[in-house]
């Protein structure tokens, strides 16, 4: 579904990705793990068109999307759930969800998807008229996930979804991401919490300084001595 070959990109003089090659198959949950600065978030930003590719190709469903505008990539069916400030704090929960469907014009479909997401996240339904900034961290992350789904994406990019969340919430959030994948949406997940991500995923890539150094099924990577030593604490 998504094929990245020899991707090079960066910010100014810094080259963040130095020839990255990964593949995401339809229906898979693929994880990118690695240390800070390995280029995980940059990979997602490059796929979304937020960082221009200097060389290499990014093919999505057979079409090269390197150099395409972010909006057009979104319209192709790739939703990005960025890290950090995840919601529009002063907008209500329902407005935040509506933002996820910004490029869609089918009112009936949007309304149906909204109800479906409220069904899956009852907490959001209870708080639909509340400002998103007043939600807890976990609720805000659920809202961000719900917003990404409102665009009916074929592929969702999750950037550090566990960042700043309480451990029990993190567990639930990973379960939600797994459920999204099992429901038929392909997922590319970036996580610092390497163990959880490797446990969750179908396939994983280990990134070091802008390159893919290891690839394999999640459990294979967990068993790898290098991964154990460098990322899982021995």
């Amino acid at each position, binding site marked *: 579904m998504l094929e990245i070959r020899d991707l090079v990109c960066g910010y100014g003089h810094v080259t963040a990705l130095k020839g990255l090659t990964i593949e995401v198959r339809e229906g898979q949950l693929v994880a990118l793990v690695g240390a800070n600065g390995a280029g995980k978030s940059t990979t997602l930003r490059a796929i979304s068109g937020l960082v221009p590719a200097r060389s290499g190709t990014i093919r999505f469903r057979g079409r090269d999307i390197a150099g395409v505008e*972010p909006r057009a990539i979104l319209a192709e069916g790739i939703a990005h759930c*960025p890290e950090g400030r*995840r919601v*529009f704090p*002063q907008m209500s929960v329902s407005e935040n969800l509506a933002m996820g469907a*910004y490029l869609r014009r089918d009112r009936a479909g949007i309304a149906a998807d909204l109800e479906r997401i409220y069904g899956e996240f009852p907490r959001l339904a209870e708080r639909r008229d509340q400002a998103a900034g007043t939600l807890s961290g976990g609720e805000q992350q659920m809202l961000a996930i719900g917003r990404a789904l409102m665009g009916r994406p074929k592929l969702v990019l999750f950037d550090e979804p566990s960042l700043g969340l309480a451990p029990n919430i993190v567990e639930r959030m990973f379960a939600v991401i797994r459920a999204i994948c099992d429901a038929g949406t392909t997922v590319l997940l970036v996580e610092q919490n390497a163990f959880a991500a490797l446990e969750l995923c179908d396939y994983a890539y280990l990134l070091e300084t802008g390159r893919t150094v290891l690839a394999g099924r999640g459990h294979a990577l967990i068993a790898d001595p290098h991964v154990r030593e460098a990322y899982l604490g021995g």
Partner: protein
Amino acid sequence: MSRLLPLALLAALVALPLALGPSPYLLNALIVTGILTIGALSLNLLLGFTGQLSLGHIAFFGIGAYVSALTSLGFEVDLGFGYRIVHEPWPAAVGFGLATLAAGACGWLIGRLSFRVRGAYFVIVTISFAEVVRLVALNWVELTQGPLALTGIPAITLGLPGIGTWTLRTKLQNYYLVLAVGTLCWLVVARLVGSRFGRAMRGLKENESLALSVGINATRTLTVAAVISAAMAGAAGSLYAHYLRIIDPDVFAFTTTVSMVIMVVAGGKGTLMGPVVGGLIFGLLPVALRPVMAPEAQWIVYGLVLIVILFVMPRGIVPGLADLVRRRPARPAPVLEPSPVVQR
């Protein structure tokens, strides 16, 4: 309640002249305040809902005033190379429409020029633009009469086919015209803010990178907001020209932009009622103070009122009062409690 409040205020404003009786002084103050409040409404669309500060907002107002005046007065200018433009006077109502369009077009130009970079650049471009337009109005004497002012601007004539026409010469008529246009502008802003386009504007202000990631076209959204805002300011300028019947380059005074910013910020930027409340308070404060103190003291009080408002209610009067109302049932009278920090 949030629906009833604007309606109650509108009813009060409709009834106000009846209560005041025939006082031309007070009516004049209300009309000028109303026109400035429309300017504040338009500024709030940009400053409050997109977060972009237009410090040259008066340019759109002044362009509206001049376009409307020149359209209804007619003019004859020599462009050089033997080209002359002769314009015969058109009805003032047409001038009003053209003023709105011309100001909107300028808003588009400024938006296209500055919204690729935004923020401080937009502030600088708008200030410069206002200054350039003021200098043109001052020095292109053949067109604008420069400091000699455009005089004898006709009053607006409204007509309904088959019923009759009215030329709005009296203050009372102008008061209701300003109130009608102001209400219309308020409704436009209210509808816009709740729409898909409004969510795009607010999204850009609250979290730009997230807004881009959901597919919002930042440059286009901000430019459209600037066009609508500028067009409203132009409409206000046109009302001003046809009410005063005389305008000179002083309509481009920077202090008027500052007044509008004060009205928006003190009333509550990013709220629908903020500019109206701020506009009425700061528009009418000088009128209230004039009988009781010397002019120098008036401005000191004006400044003090502003400082106190922003100290007690940093987000403005409307959000401040809303917080008080919301908190009352839980805890009684938290009078001097610091207002909540704006969430970022």
